[in-house]
C-alpha cells in the first residue's frame, strides 16, 4: 500500500494514499468538526463545517471529501477557520427550530453538540424557521421537515446503501426538502421502513414513531397479561444508551428491566429464531433435497427486505421462505401455545416486541397473516431506542440491575438464535441445523466463518456430506441487486441457479445496526456489537436451534413437526407483489 507524507498543523504524519484530510487528521489526533459527514456514506460535502486550509492556498477545502496529497501541510484550526465554521453553525441554527428541550434528539443531536463545542451563545442573524407539516404516514417513521438541516444523509443512505430511493432532494435552494419524490407521503413511496434514515439523521428530523405511551398504558391495565419479547440485536446495543461499550451483552438486565416496567412475562425472540430455523431449515431441506420448490431459497425474516422484494423483485416470491420472522412466530405462539399452556385467554394477552428495527412496527400489521392466533399476534413494537427511554423515564437503575432469566416455555435460546442479529447469522444458524436435518448428524464445528464479516456480499459453498450447498449473504439492500440479478440471469438462461440459499438483511451489518438501534452506529460500533453477538453465541450451552430443549418441547407438545399444518397456519405466510408508488 502506498503512503503519503503530510503534515497536520505542522506535525509530520504518514498515512495511506487515498486518505481524506478528515481521516488523516483523526489519525493525527485532531478532530475536525463535521455535520453532514457520516462514515457509512460517501462524503456529501454539504454542511461546510469541516473546512480546513492547505498551507499556501488561499481557499479552504472540505476535509471530508478532499484526499491528502504528498507534502502538504493541512491547517485544521486557526482563528479564521474557527470564525467561518462558527458562522456556518450560526446560520444553520438560525434556520433551525431550536426546540432542543422538547426534541427527541435532546442530548444525542449532532447539531446541538456542535453548537456546544463551538460555544455558540447567541445567533447574530435573523431567524427563519419554516413550519412544515409532519409526515406520520408510515407506522414506523416520522418525518419532521421543520427540523431538517438538509444534510442529505437520509437520502444518501436511502439511495446508496439501501437502493430504495424513497427519499430525494425535492425543490431548490431554501425550498429544498428531503422527502419522497413528487411530494407523496412516505407510505405512498417506495419506503421499506428500514429506518436507516432515522439512524443516520444527525438531528430530530426523522425519528421512529414513538409508542412508549402505549406500553405504559398496557402495563397499567390490570386485565392485560403483558408479555414482552426482545430481539437478538437489542441485547448488545441497549447498554450504549446507558454509557456502556457497544457490544456489551445486557440480556439479563433487559429481562429485569422489563419486569420492572410491568411485564408479566419476558420472552426472547431468540427462542423463535430457533423456531424459524426449524421451519425455514426444513423448508430448505425440502427444496434442496426433495426438489420441492424454487431455488435459491431466500430468507424472509427481515421485514424491510420483504417489503423491498415485494416492490422491486416480486418475481422472486416463489423463492421466498414462507416462514415468518421470529418476532411474528413468537407473537403467534404466545397467543396460542403459551396461552393454552398458561391457561390465559389470548384476548387478554398483550404482546410487545422490543426490536432494533423500525420496519417491525410495520411488519406487525402488514397483512392478515399477522393475526394467526385470531388476534394481533404482536400488539406493539418498540425499538431499542424507545426501550432505553422507557427505562430512563421509569427511573430504573439499569447499570446496577441484577441479571434475570427469561420465562418459560418460550424463552430459552440456542446460540443459533442469537446470531440472527448479525449479517450471515441466519445462514449460519440454518446451516448448523440443516446439516442435522439432512444427515441426522451433528456438525463438528458449528462456526461457519465464511458467512461472517462485513463484506457486502459473502458467497461460499457448504459441504453437507457431499451435498454442495451454494450460499450467499447480502446486507445493505444495495448489495442485494447483484446477487438477485445473477439469479435472474441464470433463470432466464435456463441455467442452474448460482445459489441455493440466500440470506438478506436490509441494514448494513444486520439487525445489530438496525434503524431502531441507539444512535451513533458506524462500522466500529457495528464490529463491537457483532463481537457481542458471537460472544453470546459462544457462551450458549446449546449452539444449534434443533438442540434447544424448549424447541423440542413445543414440537412435541404443540406443533408436531416442522412444516406441519399447525406450523403452516401459525408460522408461515405468503407474499404479494406491491406497487413501488401507491399514489
Amino acid at each position, binding site marked *: 500500500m502506498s503512503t503519503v507524507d503530510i503534515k497536520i498543523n505542522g506535525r509530520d504524519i504518514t498515512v495511506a494514499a487515498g486518505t481524506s484530510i478528515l481521516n488523516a487528521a483523526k489519525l493525527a489526533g485532531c478532530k475536525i468538526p463535521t*455535520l453532514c459527514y457520516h462514515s457509512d456514506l460517501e*462524503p*456529501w*460535502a*454539504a*454542511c*461546510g*463545517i469541516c*473546512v480546513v486550509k492547505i498551507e499556501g492556498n488561499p*481557499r*479552504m477545502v*472540505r476535509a471530508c*471529501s*478532499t*484526499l491528502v496529497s504528498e507534502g502538504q501541510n493541512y491547517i485544521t484550526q486557526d482563528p*479564521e477557520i474557527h*470564525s*467561518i*465554521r462558527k*458562522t*456556518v453553525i450560526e*446560520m*444553520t441554527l*438560525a*434556520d433551525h427550530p431550536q426546540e432542543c428541550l422538547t426534541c427527541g434528539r435532546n442530548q444525542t443531536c449532532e447539531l446541538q453538540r456542535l453548537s456546544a463545542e463551538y460555544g455558540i451563545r447567541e445567533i*447574530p*442573524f*435573523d431567524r*427563519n424557521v419554516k413550519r412544515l407539516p409532519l409526515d406520520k404516514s408510515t407506522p414506523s417513521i416520522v418525518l419532521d421537515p421543520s427540523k431538517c*438541516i*438538509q444534510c*442529505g444523509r437520509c437520502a444518501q443512505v436511502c439511495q446508496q446503501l439501501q437502493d430504495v430511493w424513497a427519499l*430525494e*432532494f425535492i*425543490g*431548490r*435552494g*431554501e*425550498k*429544498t426538502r428531503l422527502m419522497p419524490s413528487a411530494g407523496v407521503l412516505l407510505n405512498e413511496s417506495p419506503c421499506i421502513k428500514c429506518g436507516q434514515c432515522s439512524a443516520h439523521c444527525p438531528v430530530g428530523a426523522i425519528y421512529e414513531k414513538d409508542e412508549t405511551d402505549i406500553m405504559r398504558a398496557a402495563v397499567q391495565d390490570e386485565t392485560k397479561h403483558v408479555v414482552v419479547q426482545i430481539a437478538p440485536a437489542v441485547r448488545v446495543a441497549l447498554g450504549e444508551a446507558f454509557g456502556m461499550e457497544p457490544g456489551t451483552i445486557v440480556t439479563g438486565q433487559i429481562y429485569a428491566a422489563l419486569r420492572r416496567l410491568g411485564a408479566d412475562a419476558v420472552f426472547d425472540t431468540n427462542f423463535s429464531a430457533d423456531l424459524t430455523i426449524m421451519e425455514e431449515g426444513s423448508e430448505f431441506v425440502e427444496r434442496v433435497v426433495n426438489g420441492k420448490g424454487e431455488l435459491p431459497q431466500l430468507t424472509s425474516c427481515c421485514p424491510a427486505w420483504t417489503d423491498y422484494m415485494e416492490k422491486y423483485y416480486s418475481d422472486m416470491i416463489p423463492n421466498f421462505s414462507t416462514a415468518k420472522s421470529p418476532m411474528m412466530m413468537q407473537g403467534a405462539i404466545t397467543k396460542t401455545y403459551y396461552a393454552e399452556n398458561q391457561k390465559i385467554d389470548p384476548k387478554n394477552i398483550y404482546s410487545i416486541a422490543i426490536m432494533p428495527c423500525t420496519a417491525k412496527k410495520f411488519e406487525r400489521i402488514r397483512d392478515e397473516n399477522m393475526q394467526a392466533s385470531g388476534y394481533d399476534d404482536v400488539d406493539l413494537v418498540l425499538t431499542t431506542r424507545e426501550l432505553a427511554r422507557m427505562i430512563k423515564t421509569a427511573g430504573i437503575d439499569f447499570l446496577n440491575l441484577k441479571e434475570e432469566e427469561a420465562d418459560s416455555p418460550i424463552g430459552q435460546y440456542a446460540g443459533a438464535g442469537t446470531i440472527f442479529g448479525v449479517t450471515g447469522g441466519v445462514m449460519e444458524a440454518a446451516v448448523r441445523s440443516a446439516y442435522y436435518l439432512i444427515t441426522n448428524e451433528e456438525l463438528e464445528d458449528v462456526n461457519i466463518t465464511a458467512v461472517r464479516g462485513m463484506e457486502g456480499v459473502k458467497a461460499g459453498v457448504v459441504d453437507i456430506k457431499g451435498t454442495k450447498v451454494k450460499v450467499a449473504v447480502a446486507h445493505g439492500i444495495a448489495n442485494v441487486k447483484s446477487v438477485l440479478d445473477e439469479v435472474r440471469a441464470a433463470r432466464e438462461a435456463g441455467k442452474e441457479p448460482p445459489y441455493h440459499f440466500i440470506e438478506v438483511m436490509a441494514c448494513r451489518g444486520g439487525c445489530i445496526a438496525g434503524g431502531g438501534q441507539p444512535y451513533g452506529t458506524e462500522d466500529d460500533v457495528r464490529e463491537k456489537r457483532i463481537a457481542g453477538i458471537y460472544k453470546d453465541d459462544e457462551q450458549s450451552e446449546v449452539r444449534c436451534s434443533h438442540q434447544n430443549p424448549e424447541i423440542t418441547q413445543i414440537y412435541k407438545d404443540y406443533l408436531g413437526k416442522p412444516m406441519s399444518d399447525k406450523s403452516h397456519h401459525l408460522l408461515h405466510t405468503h407474499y404479494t407483489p406491491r406497487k413501488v408508488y401507491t399514489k
Partner: protein
Amino acid sequence: MAVKNYILVCGGTACESSKATEIFNALAAEAEAQGVIDDIQIVKTGCFGFCEKGPIVKILPEEAFYVEVVPEDAKEIISESIVKGRMVERLLYIDEEDKKKGDFDIEDIKFYQKQVRIVLRNCGFIDPEKIDEYIAREGYVALEKVLFEMNPDGVINELKESGLRGRGGAGFPTWMKWNFTKGVKNDQKYIVCNADEGDPGAYMDRSTLEGDPHSVLEAMTIAGYAVGANMGVIYIRAEYPLAIERLEIAIKQAREYGLLGKDILGSGFDFDFEIRLGAGAFVCGEETALLRSIEGNRGMPTPKPPFPAVEGLWGKPTVINNVETWANIPMIILKGGEWFRGIGTERSSGTKVFALTGKINNSGLVEVPMGTTLREIVFDIGGGITGGKKFKAVQTGGPSGGVLTADFLDTPIDFDELTAVGSMMGSGGMIVMDEDDCMIDVVKFYQEFCVDESCGKCAPCRIGTRKLYDILSKISKGKGTHQDLENMETIGNAMKKAALCGLGQTAPNPILSTMKYFRNEYLEHIDDKVCKAGKCKDLVKFEIDPDKCIGCTVCARKCPVNCISGERKQPHFIDQDQCVKCGECYAACKFGAITKS
C-alpha cells in the same frame, strides 16, 4: 436615376454632439448649390466607433474617410470628392504609426473598430444552417490540420502557446484541462460543451451557437483527437430551441460529410456527438452539477477534487469547456497560438465577448480584445449612457461578479484585473447602470436570483443567500442597521470560504463589492432612510406641493389605489398609508406639483 455617390455622416451620440447634424445640413446645401444633389445620397449612420476623431464623413464607393470634419468643410467635400472625384487630402485620416495618408479601407484603420471578432467571426456572416458556408470560411481547416499534420501533444502545445483561458468564468488555462484528461489512461473519455448559459442578461453562447454551430463542433472534435476521446456531449438549455435546432442540423450535415462519425476524412479518428438538454437550473452551469445532470441525476455540485478532467462524466476523464472557449479553438489551430497570444493582454490572451445591456445606447454583443478598457466598451462601442445620464457603474460577471465604478473606467479588462478589483469576468454579462440605479436595488435583484437558483445542497449557500437577501430587503425598507452590514460581511466571507461550488462562493460578490465601492449608499439607506435613486419604494415618498397643485385631478385619476383625494381646482393630497409608490402620479402631473423624495 441611379445614385453615384453615397455620403455617410456619423450619427452617433458623440459625433452628433460635435455638430454632425450641421455637417449633414451643410453637405445637403452644398450639393444643392453645386448641382449634384441628384447624383448623391447623404445618410446619417450609426456610430463608426471612432469618436475621438469625430465627426466623421465617409464617401462611397471611393471609401474616402474624412475625420474631424466641421460644417465649413462641406463645400470642399462636395466640390472635390463628388464633383471632381478627388480626395480632400487634409481631412483624410492619418494612421499615427506609419504617418500614411490615404483612402484606407475602413477595416485597415487602427482603432476604427474596437472590436476584434474571433469567436463571433462567422456570426452574422454565414448561414448557420449551411455547412458549405462554414467550410468556405476556413471551416474544418483546423480539423484537417490537426488530423493530418499534428499529433495530440502538438495540439495541446499550440493551445498552451495561445494562453487561452476558459471563458466560462474562472479563467482556468484550457490546455491544462486538456492535458490532465490526456494524461489519464482510460478507454472512454468525454468532451463536453457547457452551453448552459444562465447569467441574467447574458446570451453570448446562445448567439454563438445560433450563428456558428460548426465552430463548436469542430473544436470539440479537435479536443477529442487531442485527449483521446470519441464522444462529445453538448449540454444546452432547453430554453434555446433555435440553437438546439441549428446544432442538430449542423451535426447532421457534418455526419453526412464525414466530418463526424467513424474514420473522419479517412484519418482513422472517430468522433460523434450527443445533445443533452438542461432544464434551466443556473447551478447546472457549474461543471460538476452539469455532469450530474447529464448522468440523469439531480443537478447538484459534487466536491472537487476529483476534477472532471480526471473523473468526470460517468466517472470518466472529461474535458469540459464553455461555448465561447470552444469557438476560439479552430482559430488558434489555424493561425497558431502565437498569433492568439498577440491579441489581448499578457495573462489574458485573445478576446472576450460581452453582452452589453442596461442603460446604454448600443446594447448588444461585442467582442473585444482582452485589455480593452471599460471606457472603450461603454462609451465607444456602446455609444454611452442612454439619455445622456451620468455613468454610475458597470456590473460584470452577473450574480457572481461585482461592480466597476467610474474610477475603473480605464482599467483594462481581463481576468486578473477584474478579480483584483473584486468583480469577475464571469461568462460575459455586462450591465451598465446610471445615476437612476440604486445599488441596493440592483444587488437585491442578484441576490434574489441566487436564492432561487441555489441548488440547496450546501448550507453556506442555501442559508447564506437567503440571509443576505433578507438583510438587503431590510435595508431597502430603511430598516437596516450597522450590525446588518457587519453580518453581511460575515456571512459573505463564510460563503466565499465554505460554499461547495462557484455559485455559492461567488454569490456574495455583488454585495461585498458594492459595500466597498458604494458604502455611502448603504449608509444613506440605513442612517438617513433615503434612496437617492428612488428605486427602493419604501423609502420614496410622493407629496403634492399645495402651492403648485391646481387641482386638475389627473393624479387622482391615475392613482391605481385611489389614495389621492381633493376637490376639483383645490390642492390634492396623497394618503401616505395607502400609497404604493408606483410613481404614476409623479409621471402624470404636468405642473411639477408632485415631489419625490
